[in-house]
């Protein structure tokens, strides 16, 4: 068995060369002779880690050395990967290791697409949760799994990464399409085939706000009127409401039906909500204002219903409109544009 390096003839079956010590067994595969390279983006983080390590070396306190070295190795080995993995697979891609996580990436992609398609339903929430899980797995796989020896540390890191990604997804979704908003409907409108719990999408376009008509569905932050505060405070969650009357119109509620300028509206398309059905009410809508149909829980505030109460809840200013509903996203069977 001839040594490739020194040409020494070794005994057949020898594992190493007697003369130079080189391993004689050949794997038969083409060995990679190009070393791995550091990404340019990792250089400053590595420099920082080195600097921290150096400070640790210079420190007189042993405990300081231990903590510093732990932080620096964490920075050096794990943080870089986690930071670049904000885009799933990016850290692997720049290190040419994408092949390692290609299946995870495909799973993530499928889950995120399913999650978006089913957004607004329980299945959608589960899909997006699983996509974040897959994303976490991609980020952790890059370095942390190899570097962290203790299961507790890995578990802790998984939780931290998962929660961080949860916030990142929430933040990013608002940044990518800032004008898009969505909310579950609380209204039941038989004429529009709309039931409570339908997930609706709204688009925040200033021009649309100028062209609000009767029958339009809009998203607002409603007034919560209660206690001694008749003016109300703004709710922090979007609510879907229906525009019933516009500026200058005379609105009446009589026998559970909306009457505009003396003409009855179709109760199928403009149903009076349960809390207003037994109340007689009339108002003339002021400039830049609208009367809305909104689902409201009067009993929760322990108040008697009166005109002022209804005015504060149901009459909104045009500036209060956040966006106009254009599409029903959920349930799947009813998915489509709202005209």
């Amino acid at each position, binding site marked *: 068995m001839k040594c*490739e*390096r020194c040409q020494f003839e070794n005994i057949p079956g020898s594992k*190493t060369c007697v003369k130079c*010590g*080189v*391993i004689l067994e050949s794997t038969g595969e083409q*060995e990679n*002779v*190009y*070393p*791995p*390279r*550091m990404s340019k983006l990792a*250089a400053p983080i*590595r420099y920082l880690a*080195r*600097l921290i*390590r*150096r400070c640790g*070396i210079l420190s007189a306190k042993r405990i300081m050395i231990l903590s510093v070295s732990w932080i620096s190795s964490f920075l*050096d080995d794990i943080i870089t990967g986690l930071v670049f993995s904000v885009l799933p697979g990016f850290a692997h891609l720049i290190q040419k290791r994408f092949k390692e996580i290609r299946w995870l990436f495909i799973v993530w992609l499928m889950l995120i697409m399913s999650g978006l398609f089913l957004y607004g339903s329980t299945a959608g929430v589960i899909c997006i949760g699983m996509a974040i899980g897959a994303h976490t797995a991609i980020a952790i796989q890059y370095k942390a799994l190899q570097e962290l020896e203790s299961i507790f540390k890995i578990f802790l890191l998984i939780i931290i990464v998962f929660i961080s990604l949860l916030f990142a997804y929430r933040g990013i979704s608002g940044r990518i399409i800032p004008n898009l908003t969505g909310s579950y409907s609380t209204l039941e409108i038989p004429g529009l085939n709309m039931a409570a719990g339908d997930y609706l999408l709204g688009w925040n376009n200033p021009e649309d706000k100028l062209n609000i008509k009767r029958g339009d569905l809009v998203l607002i932050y409603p007034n919560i009127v209660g206690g001694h505060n008749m003016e109300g405070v703004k709710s922090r969650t979007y609510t879907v409401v229906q525009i019933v009357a516009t500026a200058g119109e005379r609105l009446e509620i009589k026998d559970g039906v909306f009457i505009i300028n003396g003409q009855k509206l179709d109760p199928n398309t403009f149903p009076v909500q349960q809390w207003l059905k037994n109340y007689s009410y009339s108002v003339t809508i002021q400039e830049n204002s609208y009367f809305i149909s909104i689902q409201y829980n009067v009993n929760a505030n322990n108040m008697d219903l009166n005109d002022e109460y209804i005015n504060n809840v149901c009459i909104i200013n045009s500036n209060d409109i956040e966006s106009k509903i254009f599409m029903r996203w959920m349930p799947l069977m009813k998915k489509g544009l709202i005209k």
Partner: protein
Amino acid sequence: MARFSQLEFDETYPERKKTLSGEPIRDAKYFYKEAIRSQLAGDFELALRNYSRTLEKNRMIFEAWVGQTLMLIELGEYKEAIVWADKALENFPDQSELFAVKALAYWRDSQPEKAIDSSDISVSKNNVTSRVWLIRAEIMFNRKSTVAESCMSKAISLAGKEIGIIRLDTGRLLKNKKNYFAAIEHLNEVIRIFPQSPLAWYELGCCQSELGFSQAKATIEQSLKLRPNWKLAKTALSKCKRKGFFSKLFRR
């Protein structure tokens, strides 16, 4: 393959004159020579590539594995250097030089405990080379300077045909430790051996500049003449030109 045995370094880097016999055969030997040439020119990226090409032709050239690891260290890619030294050790498990370069990578990456461990292993092997002692010297420099000096002496005495590059690295080490006079001594010797090495001229120029010697400018210009458009040398030259009379005086 004996290192630097047939090294021709008589052209301006990176140009090569065409020989009458035509293009040279691009075998392992050719790429190895090119790698050394790039290394002496301070072009570590190209040197790394040429070492890799050498291994593509013949993966049993141990010196090319060491060269690759050293180039990764020069490029500041210490983690990768450690990975690569480990890979080389799979093929050459008893080579002291591979343990030494791994120790150097650990040292430069500010992991002294691991560096000392690897360096201890390297010197405990049978075939201790001059490179091993030189790396040992770097690791010991801040702790025990007398030990470091004796390590450097051993490295130079064991260097044999590699004396040029060992002296160059000794000079660079001393320069980094701000021992400019001793560094100049070694670098002058390197220039005698490799008069066409831009790196040697550059390092010498930097040492002279630090000491406020007037010939620093000419020395760095010489390195730029040998390797035109070398950014590092250009920066050093402009820095050298900016130095005023008093800074030169007080440095001296």
